[in-house]
């Protein structure tokens, strides 16, 4: 492919040299080179001259690779999701702070209740 491209460029070079100035010449060569490299990249299968079954085989290989990649990624995603679920559960689980705090609230509230009662008792005594 590359040899063919160089051949074409040299042919164009000859034509261009005879017709246009040197500056236009360089621009033209660059353009052709870019076009050819683009063709090289996009139509690899055509350029490499593969027959249809071979091309199909290559497609199948690529598809298989993509599939295996997809499977790997989905497996990892599942693992990550599971980890997130475990993490969520551990976050939502009340810790020792909440437990002690809650007991403190209960004792404090009943303490206030008892205090109010005691105050009314004291007032009654007076």
């Amino acid at each position, binding site marked *: 492919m590359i040899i063919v491209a160089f051949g074409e460029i040299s042919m164009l070079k000859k034509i261009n040299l005879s017709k246009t100035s040197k500056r236009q010449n360089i621009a033209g060569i660059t353009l052709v080179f870019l076009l050819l490299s683009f063709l090289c990249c996009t139509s690899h299968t055509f350029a490499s001259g593969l027959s249809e079954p071979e091309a199909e085989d290559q497609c199948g290989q690529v598809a298989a690779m993509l599939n295996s990649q997809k499977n790997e990624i989905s497996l990892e995603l599942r693992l990550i999701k599971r980890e997130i679920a475990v993490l969520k559960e551990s976050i*939502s689980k009340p810790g020792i702070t*909440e437990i002690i705090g*809650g*007991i403190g609230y209960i*004792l404090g509230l*009943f303490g206030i*209740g*008892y205090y109010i009662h005691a105050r009314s*008792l004291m007032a009654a005594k007076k």
Partner: protein
Amino acid sequence: MHISDGVLPISVTLGSYAISMVAAAWSVRKTRAENLPKTAVMTSAFFVASLVHVPLGPTSVHLLLPGLIGIMLGPSAFLSIFLGLFLQSILFQFGGLTSLGANAIMMGFPALLAGWTFNILKRKGRTAHILAGAFSGGLATALATLALALLLVSAGEDFTAVGKLAFAAHLPVICIEAIISGCTISFLYKVRPAFLNISPTVLEK
């Protein structure tokens, strides 16, 4: 066993709030000042008990203790459970603030009933006390399960399906609660009979 926020329809939520508020106010009126420390301790026990998980196959259920609270506190049990549930919903995110009324009804009324049945069933002697306590403890949990099923019916669930599921899941809890209630009463009968409203003179006879 807690009903979460947004499960019950608004009418049921408001209605259960009203009922539980009235019951809590009645409970406060009935609570005597000298029983306040006991009530505080039992409330703490109820508050923490929901963290004791009993593994059950793939899932787990937790202790409820309405029976024991009812036996120990009598009419003050509703206040104790209401306060315990309130703090659980705030600190542990168990249940929710909007479903607090329904949860209080679900656990509070069985607790009151357990106290009542214990007083009726108890006879002289330690074994009779233990049996009455175990029965009341188990009964309260079973009734709480029934109340859960009834409340979920109002949310459009099928009663028999929910009832069966809840009862099957809580059958081990009912047994464990009965055992715990029995053991606690046995211990208190020996150590501090005054907690069970038994005067020491009766005990000596």
